[in-house]
């Protein structure tokens, strides 16, 4: 491939690996609890109710946890999607992909912070 490394490259790689660890440790249990277990009746549906979840979000530690979980994993995914798209043949977009992917993660960061610390 024919591109020069931008000086911000180490930052994105760092966020990628940070988010990779967080995703590896935490994402499976969240998918299982909120997306599968509750619908199969393995856990009480009340655990995912509006009242219950907004109650949890009153706790600043829960908010902080969600910030770490959601923001770092966004950068992880953005970085990997950038390279995956190039690998499967979109080499011609190699110059645009970093802007699209990291831009998406940056917007996602702002959205997460806004929802958790302004709207709540």
């Amino acid at each position, binding site marked *: 491939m*024919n591109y020069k490394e931008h000086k911000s490259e180490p930052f994105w790689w760092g966020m990628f690996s940070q988010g*990779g*660890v967080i*995703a*590896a*440790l*935490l*994402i*499976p*249990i*969240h*998918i*299982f*609890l*909120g*997306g*599968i277990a509750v*619908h*199969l009746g393995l*856990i009480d*549906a009340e*655990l*995912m*109710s*509006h*009242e219950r*979840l*907004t109650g*949890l*979000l009153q*706790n600043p530690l*829960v908010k902080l946890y*969600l910030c770490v979980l*959601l923001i770092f*994993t*966004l950068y*992880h*995914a*953005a*970085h*990997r*999607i950038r*390279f*995956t798209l190039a*690998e*499967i*043949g979109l*080499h*011609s977009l190699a110059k645009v992909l970093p802007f699209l992917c990291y831009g998406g993660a940056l917007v*996602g960061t702002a*959205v*997460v912070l806004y*929802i*958790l610390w302004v*709207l*709540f």
Partner: protein
Amino acid sequence: MMLDSETTKTYTRPISKAWWLRDRGHFNRRYFMFLLRELTSVFVALYVVLFIYEIFLLTKGPDAHAAFRESLNSGPWIAFHIIALLFALYHSYTWLGLTTKMQAAGRGLVKIGTKTLPPILIALGSYGAWIVATIIIAYLFLTL
């Protein structure tokens, strides 16, 4: 593939667009598993966006959130979560397994004195951390 003849004359072996399925006429399992590993990121992203959307809906009141929960309680969405879970598990397996490979390569990452710890202990450590984190989150979610 575009080659700029002014800046490079390096030979690049032609690669088929579907190299991860067929490379020079053969199915290459390593290439395929590599692409699956890279694809885990798509499911992580989709799940995280869905998660953020749910938190947003919480701010819109109980009815909006209940309707969202109701729609998730359907075959296609449950299927999506099962597939996303399988990809997430594959991500965890490959990502945490990297520590073992790093330990096995060269002189290793973790040493006690001059002794390099065997990779199997590093594997137990990283997969163990995964199990502990999973139990802690499940416990907090069910009891907080």
